[in-house]
């Protein structure tokens, strides 16, 4: 293992055995797989080095969306995530929520901001810890405890449920909540450290006889969709884990799984309710529709799409095409979801590629089922049946939906952008793999959809060589290990590009600075005598150390993008231009903005009908932003959910996050 090698790529020596079961192995916590997300390259490098020195397997990433897609593609590829709070493309807390909902990994937040309210925000969003920058290595050495603690509670919950003791399982819920608010190694910043130690002792006493080996429930797209439907049917106030579980009817799923997921979902909705107002405003301005619920258009998922299709708003041939493109499992559902939901870029793209592969659908769908992590996917018919319930409420939105015309463009942009990323990942290491991996990455992108929680049954294995997909997706430990060891500098693509474009400016800046410094009176004799030999220190070093890494990224990105787009007969000039100008100068701090923006795109795409599928979306779509779509869609969909929930049932005051626990839920009146 290249521990401390400082290279971008690390081939880990351990093969995930740490995670898969043997927490008390000799090597523990060596090989803990950490994903660290920070837009600050300096901090990112330091953290990477620190984590490597802790003998962890580190993957670094400077864009939240890239991190999310990476997590989605590498299910169970990471044990813990460390993320900065302030990032230009996505708020760290949003990322935290996403990860909690989709991947259920422990997330540690960090920031230079140590103000109490921000730290509290971390706590309430479910962060396992909050580190104040500058982070010391001592703080990182102990992060493994969060993984252990989390797994212990997950296993406990599941175990108790299976043994039939519901009350004990409920009680187990409480400690897991308390644990979320405890601190770890960041001394002095949390007053709960003593409390945490007490809890730890309690936990250890209770868990003496239990091992931590328990497969984590993976909330796939279908599963989450079933969950959401069940919640809808019951009404958010009356959604009891027991009832939800019954409605979902997923073998192997426990009430505790549902309860913990429900807890997160409620937290999520709570966040969104605060954001939805802003989204409404944005959507109105974009689309010109007075209806406040239109903010969630882009988030229309499968069930809504079915309603729309049923309402005849989607052109029949369009729907048929989409249906044909979907996986065999739930054709209508996925087809409906495709044009509207930006997250379905992959699915749409898959569908496009699938057109000549109709007869293979069933085979692929079977294989697709295999790809799920133990979650049977036989629920589609049931889901479809349930879809009809909410259909009526969305008829009014059909007009809005039909106005989308750019969805297809974004699909292809996504494809083109996924390619550069894979090339980036492999470019530095093995050129021969480039041709292979892009396809595998595309295929492995399918799990991205599943984990994004969108009704997207065309889960990417729509590609012809589905068998390859299944091998490429993280079932292949080596593959996933490779992938996860790569540094996702795709985000740095845009930053690299912008920084390279800026270098000209920086050059002047530095030159002027240097000259200024020479004229600047120096008060220190030591440094007066020793004048710097190089004029453009910062930049020259940059040239030697950074260009090599940045140029290939840029070139790779541009070349692949253009290749892909040309192959598909799309003109992407304005897109590329927009891509390059995108990220650094326009940090997107408001997720609501993004959602509103994406809503616009969705609204306009559907109108184009089936013919315009291949047109490139005329919109700013920076390289790193294609990851945005996942997030936007996720939010959009849940916005729709919340909007729907408000429509369907009088959503009374939701219980406080702190007051919520599985025990209480069971006592709610049905």
């Amino acid at each position, binding site marked *: 293992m290249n521990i401390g*090698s400082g290279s971008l790529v690390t081939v880990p020596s351990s093969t995930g055995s740490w995670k898969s079961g043997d927490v008390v192995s000799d090597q523990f916590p060596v090989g803990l797989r950490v994903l660290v997300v920070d837009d600050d390259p300096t901090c990112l490098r*330091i953290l990477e*080095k*620190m984590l490597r020195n802790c003998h962890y397997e580190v993957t670094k990433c400077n864009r939240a969306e890239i991190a999310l897609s990476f997590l989605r593609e590498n299910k169970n590829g990471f044990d813990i995530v460390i993320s900065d709070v*302030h990032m230009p493309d996505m708020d760290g807390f949003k990322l935290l929520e996403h990860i909690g909902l989709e991947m259920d990994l422990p997330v540690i937040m960090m920031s230079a901001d140590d103000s109490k309210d921000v730290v509290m925000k971390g706590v309430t969003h479910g962060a396992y810890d909050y580190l104040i920058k500058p982070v010391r290595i001592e703080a990182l050495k102990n992060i493994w405890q969060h993984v252990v603690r989390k797994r212990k509670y997950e296993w406990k919950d599941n175990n108790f449920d299976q043994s039939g003791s519901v009350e004990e399982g409920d009680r187990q819920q409480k400690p897991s909540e308390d644990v979320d608010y405890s601190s770890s190694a960041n001394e002095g910043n949390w007053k709960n450290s003593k409390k945490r130690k007490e809890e730890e002792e309690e936990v250890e006493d209770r868990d003496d006889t239990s091992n931590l080996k328990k497969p984590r429930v993976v909330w796939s797209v279908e599963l989450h969709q079933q969950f959401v439907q069940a919640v809808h049917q019951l009404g958010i106030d009356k959604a009891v884990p027991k009832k939800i579980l019954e409605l979902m009817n997923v073998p192997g799923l426990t009430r505790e799984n549902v309860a913990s997921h429900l807890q997160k979902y409620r937290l999520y909705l709570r966040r969104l309710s605060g954001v939805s107002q802003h989204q409404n405003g944005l959507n109105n301005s974009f689309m010109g529709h007075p209806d406040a619920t239109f903010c969630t258009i882009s988030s229309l998922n499968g069930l809504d799409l079915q309603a729309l299709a049923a309402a005849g708003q989607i052109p029949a041939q369009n729907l048929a095409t989409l249906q044909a493109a979907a996986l065999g499992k739930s054709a209508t559902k996925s087809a409906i979801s495709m044009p509207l939901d930006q997250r379905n870029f992959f699915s749409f793209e898959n569908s496009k590629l699938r057109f000549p592969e109709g007869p293979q659908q069933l085979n692929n769908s079977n294989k697709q089922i295999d790809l799920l992590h133990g979650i049977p996917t036989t629920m589609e018919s049931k889901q479809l049946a349930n879809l009809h319930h909410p259909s009526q409420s969305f008829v009014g939105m059909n007009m809005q939906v039909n106005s989308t015309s750019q969805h297809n463009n974004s699909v292809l942009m996504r494809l083109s952008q996924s390619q550069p990323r894979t090339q980036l990942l492999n470019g530095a290491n093995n050129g021969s793999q480039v041709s292979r991996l892009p396809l595998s990455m595309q295929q492995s992108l399918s799990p991205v959809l599943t984990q994004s929680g969108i009704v997207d049954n065309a889960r990417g294995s729509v590609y012809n060589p589905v068998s390859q997909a299944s091998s490429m997706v993280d079932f292949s430990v080596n593959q996933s290990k490779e992938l996860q060891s790569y540094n996702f500098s795709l985000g740095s693509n845009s930053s690299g590009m912008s920084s390279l474009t800026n270098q000209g400016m920086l050059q002047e800046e530095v030159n002027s*600075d240097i000259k200024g410094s020479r004229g600047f009176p120096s008060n220190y004799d*030591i440094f007066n005598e*020793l004048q710097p030999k190089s004029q453009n220190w910062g930049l020259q070093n940059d040239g030697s150390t950074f260009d090599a890494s940045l140029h290939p990224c840029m070139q790779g990105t541009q070349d692949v993008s253009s290749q892909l787009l040309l192959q598909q007969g799309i003109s992407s000039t304005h897109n590329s231009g927009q891509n390059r100008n995108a990220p650094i100068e326009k940090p997107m701090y408001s997720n609501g903005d993004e959602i509103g923006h994406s809503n616009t795109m969705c609204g306009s795409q559907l109108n184009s009908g089936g013919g315009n599928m291949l047109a490139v979306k005329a919109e700013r779509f920076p390289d790193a932003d294609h990851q945005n779509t996942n997030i936007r869609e996720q939010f959009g969909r849940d916005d729709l959910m919340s909007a729907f929930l408000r429509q369907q049932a009088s959503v009374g005051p939701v219980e406080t996050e702190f007051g919520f626990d599985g025990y209480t839920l069971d006592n709610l009146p049905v």
Partner: protein
Amino acid sequence: METNNIHDLRRQVANLRQSLFDQGYVDEQFIELEELQDDATPNFVEEVVTLFCKDSARLIHIIDQTLENHPVDFAKLDNYMHQFKGSSSSIGAKKVKTKCTQFMEYCRAENVEGCKRTFQQLKEEYTTLRRKLEIYFQYARQVGPTETASCHPK
């Protein structure tokens, strides 16, 4: 066996390093970086400082631009400066970090003149630090990696 020249050089490097601490240019975080340096990454500190300077140049440029806009977008400034503060604190750039904090206070008070004045000071501090670190690294590279992580401030 060390020659006198090497011996003098080592002492020079140690003095340079000590003065960085004594004069408050860097703080304990710099030692954290030094302790991360090992055989696998013998120039880790320099590498990180280079990263910092590259990113700082970008931030300084964009902050300059933002300060010239009318009206001044204080939210953006606060955001940029937050980034700057984060990265400067991560390498232990003490004086620069202090200026960042001052700047953010003026930002919150929406005091344009205060911001501009503080930013000018910040740029000077940053330039000075870069120059000193550059010299230090040049000498440190000549004597090899053994000298850097031995001394502690005060």
